[in-house]
């Protein structure tokens, strides 16, 4: 059962990463938004009540993101781990678990992920990246989380229907 859930978390995130890496012709903001989409999937699965995404799953998908986005090895891995750690800790400490609460945690995780990405790029290049693309990516990512969560919630329900265990209660965002 755990294997099925873990496979769902990992494979869905890998698929999101793979599709995000396609040459969509996005502008400067798109360059920030697209690699963050698999991080959003990790945010969704890490906030699951029953079986949150395993740290090993986060590590593997982060490494895969490094590969497909041609980033220095460890960059997206670190962003993914830091964000998942935050979501998991925040979800555990939350006394009431509702879709609204999950959405608030997810919305708080997005700026954290962007900030960690900016800091790591600063560490790597030694020069601060322009802040404006990051700020303008924020609303796009918040908006992208809703349909992404809906699709992942649908996949979760399909797995449940197929005999697996549903991980996120309440569905959707």
């Amino acid at each position, binding site marked *: 059962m755990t294997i099925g859930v873990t496979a769902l978390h990992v494979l869905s995130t890998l698929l999101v990463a*793979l599709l995000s890496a396609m040459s*969509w012709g996005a502008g400067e903001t798109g360059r920030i938004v697209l690699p963050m989409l698999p991080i959003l999937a990790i945010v969704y699965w890490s906030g699951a009540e029953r079986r949150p995404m395993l740290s090993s799953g986060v590590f593997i998908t982060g490494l895969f993101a490094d590969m497909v986005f041609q980033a*220095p090895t460890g960059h997206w891995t670190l962003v993914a781990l830091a964000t998942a*750690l935050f979501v998991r800790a925040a979800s555990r400490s939350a006394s009431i678990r509702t879709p609204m609460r999950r959405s608030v945690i997810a919305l708080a995780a997005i700026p954290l992920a962007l900030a960690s990405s900016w800091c790591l790029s600063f560490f*790597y290049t030694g020069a601060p990246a322009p802040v404006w*693309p990051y700020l303008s990516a924020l609303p796009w990512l918040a908006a992208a989380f809703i349909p992404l969560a809906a699709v992942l919630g649908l996949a979760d329900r399909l797995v449940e229907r197929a005999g697996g265990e549903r991980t996120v209660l309440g569905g959707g965002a």
Partner: protein
Amino acid sequence: MRHDIRSDSYQRSAQRLPQAMREASLWPFAGYIALAAAMLALSRIGHPYALAVQSVGHEVAAPLLRTASAVSAPFVGAMRRLTAFRTLVEENDRLVAENRRLRANETRARDLELRVTSLEALNKTVAAAKIDFVTARVIADSGGPFVRSVIIDAGRENGIKPGHPVMSADGVAGRVVIAGQRTSRVLLTVDFNSRIPVLAGPHQARAVMEGDNSPLARLSYLAPDSGARPGDLVVTSGVGGIFPRGLHIGRIVDTGEALRIEPSVRFDRLDYLSVLLFDPPTAALAGVELNSGTGTVPFQEGPIPPARPRSGGVR
């Protein structure tokens, strides 16, 4: 006494934190974060291990990217057309102005070509070497805040090697940094790690184009008396042997703080790229076998090889 109370409080907090982390199964995260940080640090210093991991990662991801690219091609195409609609009017105005300028230059270029040909014949100049090229499709974009590279679906089996220059229809796009069996990674000219010796201005002053991940590249080591001004063309100088001399890069622009280079290549619209199978002349002297391929383009005289789809039999 106050100090003791604080000390007790710290101790209790210190005891509570590991327990909370254990309860939330967060300890494995700490281990993986340490591992990822070590990997990033190795990448930063260019450790051979990190480069090997990147190379292996490229080989692993390439077939998946090829498949995903083939499956998602209609959707990607539709999305790119959709985003292009936003700037359609602006793009059309730019193309009309450019077309007008190019028509004016065409007559002058033909006249100059005739003069150069006759002067070369008079001087018995050695004919310029021919450079083979292969054209490949862009299958993945790097994205992210600080890496500017793309993956193309041609690799070692097409004769591509690390260091080969890469062109789009508009000019120099970058150079190959990793050549896999059937895919290659191209470092774009605006990437932080890109340095290209160039000639700028009317007197062909030597300088270096330095990428800094912004749309405009830095123009470094340009002599103050070079005479270079905004609007002047920038071409490769051929120094260093990676790029042949005379490939079009872009134009000089003045940002108010410094002169910078606006690349002529639209990096957000890369579709097909041509890899010049160009080995440094010194490699030929050393007995290294030069590449041979299907397409042939004369450098220094002819236009930049146009991007051609693979169905055109380039590969």
